[in-house]
């Protein structure tokens, strides 16, 4: 049908590719070859083998990356460094230290106490996974581990708050200390939530930003609640 139209049109005027239908590929012309493009230059990492470097360098490189991300969290501005090179070392360190500090809160009876280490650990990781799944299901473009990385790193202000709370509780445990702890925890909670939304909000479709931010708010609220209600034995 297309050819019929073409012949009709060809009869009326001279279109651009008038003689194209006459071209045929004869068997003499070879239509084969190689379609490989020679790679010009290797990327610098390939030539540089990390097997021979001293162990200190290897460890320092990762530590520096983690440290840089901590700085990004404390001063959140729109940079993609946190997202591009994600790693889960920072979240692991933060989660373990927070869970260690939170465990074994006071208990009158065995089950009446604060969260145990496993509970805190599970809440943080399971909560982060659920929030990531939620944002992906709502149509977010961020990858799974990038989101875990951001949520984990933004626990840093709350870990600082936990440290401050423990120090304050060493000093006194009255109403004044409670007010101080409340103010500190609330400030750090706000900081965490703002930092994580600064990193994550851009990857969401615009009509659903609030739907994605609310679970993050709830997540950090739970962690802040656990920090605030911690009472030592």
């Amino acid at each position, binding site marked *: 049908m297309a050819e019929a139209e073409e012949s009709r049109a060809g009869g009326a005027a001279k279109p651009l590719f008038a003689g194209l239908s006459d071209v045929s590929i004869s068997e003499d012309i070879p239509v084969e070859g190689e379609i490989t493009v020679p790679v010009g230059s290797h990327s610098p990492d390939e030539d540089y083998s990390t097997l021979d470097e001293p162990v200190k360098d290897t460890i320092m490189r990762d530590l520096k990356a983690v440290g840089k991300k901590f700085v990004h969290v404390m001063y959140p501005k729109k940079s993609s460094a946190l997202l591009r090179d994600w790693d889960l070392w920072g979240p692991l360190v933060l989660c373990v230290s927070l869970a260690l500090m939170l465990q074994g809160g*006071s208990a009158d009876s065995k089950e009446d*106490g604060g*969260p145990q280490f496993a509970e805190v650990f599970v809440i943080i990781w399971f909560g982060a996974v659920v929030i990531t799944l939620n944002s992906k299901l709502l*149509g977010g473009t961020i990858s799974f581990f990038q989101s875990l990385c951001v949520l984990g790193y933004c626990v840093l202000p709350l870990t600082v708050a936990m440290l401050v709370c423990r120090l304050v509780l060493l000093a006194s445990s009255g109403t004044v200390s409670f007010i101080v702890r409340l103010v500190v925890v609330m400030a750090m909670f706000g900081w965490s939530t703002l930092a994580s939304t600064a990193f994550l909000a851009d990857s969401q479709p615009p*009509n659903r930003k609030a739907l994605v931010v609310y679970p993050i708010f709830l997540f950090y609220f739970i962690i802040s609640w656990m920090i605030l209600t*911690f009472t030592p034995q």
Partner: protein
Amino acid sequence: MATSDELQFHEFDEAADLLAVNPDATTTRISEQQSHVAVNVSAGSEEGELGEETDKTELLSGQKKQPSFWTFEYYQTFFDVDTYQVLDRIKGSLLPLPGKNFVRHHLRNNPDLYGPFWICATLAFTLAVSSNVAHALEKRGDPSFHYSPQFHKVTIAGLITYCYAWLVPLALWGYLQWRKGLSIHVGSYSFLETVCVYGYSLFIYIPTSILWLIPAAWLQWLLLAFAAALSGSVLVLAFWPLLRSDSKPATLAALAAIVSLHVLLAVGCKLYFFQMLPSTIPPVHPLVTAQHPTVLLPRQASASVPLRH
């Protein structure tokens, strides 16, 4: 006998006219195998979104390839809501109007899992947190009281909320499917829509559980009655059109079961999480115990007083 000209494929004139009038209208074409073109004109910006939604669902419901159960896209279809839609559904669960069936009016064939899941999570944590705060506030007069975060309550609250919000709709959906098999007039909703109605109807309990911190028993029971009435009526209004063509005893029994389970949830939560009476029990004066060492002081329900000889 039709001429060969009439049997040829013709573009719809109406479609061409409509397109000429409104040149930037959105047009949708169904699959190429079908030999007609459908035109979808968005009439205005307000109607546009709703119109697009319903038109899209009409056009796509038959033709859209349902993603397989094992792919991620299948589950993405359950989260296909925008912020304003979720807020609108929450508002609809708070204000049950007699004419508006929640499922037909607010869900509109687009049930979502976002609302039920996060409302249940929020409700579980709100119950646990405000129960802990109420406990602490109530006991603050008691010197022997040592504050504890009572973290196990989070687990229990979560279990109760999620079981209610998912198992009861399952049972109700099963019941409706069974009745639909017996009598053709009984309609039914899909399982997702049932879960959606139940999930959104639980929203009212979130502010209620925060307001239960106020230590006035009459206020707490009043709030409970108000919340149970509101969310119960949302459920009844949603399921009444399905059941009304069934036999009278069956309809009444089903509606009574729905309402009573809902009230049972509210009362159970109130009693378990906020079981204390509002007044603090003052500690017994030590002189009294010294004079009557053999008298057993009446054990109060919520505070144990140390006996001193």
